[in-house]
């Protein structure tokens, strides 16, 4: 029991993810700045921001639904933390696993978005409400391609268990290359999930201030930001596990290092992509997702189904 508690609160859950989230935020921000020819923040900046935020006064809007407003960030954080326990981040085995956990992980990763919606909607500010509606609308656009692109490799591996999937791909490293279209789709959909340019429509600063987060401040905002960072790390770990299962037979120390490299690689791609574009409009974003992203994801599914038949023979 103590072991489980340690796993959940300290490593690899809670504390580890918090620190890793801060590190991920730093990498993201530093790279973003360097790509724009700026010096960028020092390494402790995310931690300094966190400390500053928790030291600030907590304000709840008078008309907000206090319970939902306060619970939403906790829900977002909890869902992201829970999802991580089922992801075989390093090695071939996750901490917990059962058949069908890939579906659970995907839905746990949807929960934060829902929490942002609830928090935004019940803070009863016009900006938050518009931001909340936008994040939900956007969810419908990127969620299907994201799910399909992650489920397609599962079909090829013939299992709904993430850990078994990873073992399968490490036995057949060549098969990963069939999933490259899926990886592209997943990274682009990840931009939507993490609300980054060009899909940062729900928190478009120049239109609706900060979207669903407009009314948040102090500790709650610190919590929300942490949830966001952890969501980024967890989603990147999921993508790394599914699409980049290389070198999983190394020594444990090397495995840990390899895991960091893989996650930072995906975060670097995200940082690079978000410097590259202008923000799309909501209608353009949905159009893009359904016109290009979803068909590409479907093509990946078809490819994997065909491959499964061919390879089984």
């Amino acid at each position, binding site marked *: 029991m103590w072991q489980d508690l340690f796993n959940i609160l300290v490593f690899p859950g809670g504390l580890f993810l918090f620190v890793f989230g801060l590190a991920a935020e730093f990498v993201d921000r530093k790279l973003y700045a360097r*790509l*724009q*020819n*700026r010096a960028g923040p020092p390494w402790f900046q995310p931690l300094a921001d966190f400390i500053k935020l928790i030291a600030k006064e907590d304000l709840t809007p008078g008309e907000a639904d206090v319970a939902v407003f306060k619970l939403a960030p906790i829900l977002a954080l909890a869902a992201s933390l829970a999802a991580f326990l089922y992801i075989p981040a390093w090695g071939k085995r996750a901490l917990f696993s059962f058949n069908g956990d890939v579906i659970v992980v995907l839905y746990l990763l949807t929960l934060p978005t829902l929490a942002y919606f609830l928090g935004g909607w019940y803070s009863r500010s*016009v*900006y938050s*409400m*518009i931001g909340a509606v936008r994040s939900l609308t956007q969810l419908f656009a990127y969620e299907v391609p994201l799910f399909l692109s992650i489920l397609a490799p599962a079909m090829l591996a013939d299992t709904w268990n993430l850990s078994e999937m990873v073992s399968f791909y490490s036995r057949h490293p060549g098969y990963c290359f069939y999933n490259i279209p899926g990886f592209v789709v997943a990274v682009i959909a990840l931009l939507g999930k993490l609300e980054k*340019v*060009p899909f*940062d*429509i729900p928190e*478009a*600063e*120049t*239109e*609706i*201030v900060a979207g669903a987060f407009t009314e948040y401040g102090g500790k709650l905002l610190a919590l929300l930001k942490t949830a966001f960072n952890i969501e980024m790390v967890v989603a990147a770990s999921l993508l790394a596990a599914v699409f980049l299962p290389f070198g999983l037979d190394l020594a444990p120390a090397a495995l840990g290092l390899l895991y960091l490299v893989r996650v930072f690689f995906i975060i670097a791609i995200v940082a690079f992509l978000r*410097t*590259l*574009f*202008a*923000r*799309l*409009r*909501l*209608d*353009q974003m949905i159009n893009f997702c359904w016109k290009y992203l979803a068909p590409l994801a479907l093509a990946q599914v078809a490819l994997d189904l065909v491959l499964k038949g061919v390879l089984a023979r």
Partner: protein
Amino acid sequence: MHDSGEVIIPIGPQHPALKEPECFLISLRGEKITAASIKLGYNHRGIEKACESRTYIQDLYLIERICGICSHSHSTCFVQAVEEIAGIEIPGRAKYIRTLIGELERIHSHLLWLGVAGHEIGFDTLLMYTWRDREVVMDILASLTGNRVNYGINTVGGVRRDIKPDHQEKILKAMDLLEERTKYYIELGSSESTLIKRLSKVGMLSRADAKNLGAVGPTARASGIERDVRKDDPYAAYAELDFKVITSDKCDVYGRTLVRLGELMQSFSLVRQVMQKIPSGPITVKTGRKIPSGEAVSRYEAPRGEDFHYVRANGTEMPERVKVRAPTLANIQAVSKMLEDRYLADLPIVIAAIDPCFSCTDRMVTLHDQTRHKKNTFAWETIRRKSISWYRQQGVDFKALNKKMAKLF
């Protein structure tokens, strides 16, 4: 949320999209804008009145501070009017220096605008790059005039600082660098598809509408109206310089972007011509402190459009009346036309596309009938009273505070 399914969202007086206080009340149905009302006046500083109780020399610095970006435009426009009344013909070298600073200011303003436009559509990389390049011209302005923004180069009867020989090389080098960068931005603007998607066919303003609503500057020129005070009513040294008036018939935000980028290229060429043709000689003529009575109208092509000043003198050291009509005031009325049937997401870039400067403008306008939304309008006065009484309850004594503040300064 309104009964009819419409939401009214206030963009301003404080909002990240706006760099100055002004208020746009936007009625939304879903993501579509159904009505827009613009409220200005948060920045009214009574400069016109203040000018009447200061000498011409003091006014010059006050007028320069009307705007934080086109400071040289306002001060030149004012000083031209004063010189016309006094019958002063300034030396040729001074005319060229005014032109030089004016063009450098246009370069800095247009680069700044390009960055702001990028930021409004979420393209922060463009913002960072253009503002980095803008530093080149800011450094030149600082070394030429002694300040980055409030140049203070004008004085009645000429200019205050001369160009030193070592500036010449520096300026020409910077022009080469900036020209290369601008060419890159033109290329980027004509090929980056996310940029075109966000700018093209957004904020349409037909030629007839632009004329009717009195649009000026790049806003009018992007609607195909070939007007430029530098060409039509030349001042300073523009009559002796060779340049093209850039127009576009696209009528949208994309057109306005292309016009501004084209004008940047013209400005580089103008600066080079100035450096080549600048005559030697004195930079000021002697003037008295008193200006004879009379009146004059002065026009100047600021980066944002035509700047208009009217000065009336009464023979004393102080003007009788100074009237300032900043370019944004002429353009702001076109905004409601541009917002028709657009999305909320287009609002920031449409407003930014006229390159608004509200501290210049500062007036208040209603563009759409708001009566049917009456219960949703924000009573600022009530809020203000409430906050004052709240602070009183907290034990804040305003009278003592005011006295204390007065003592401190």
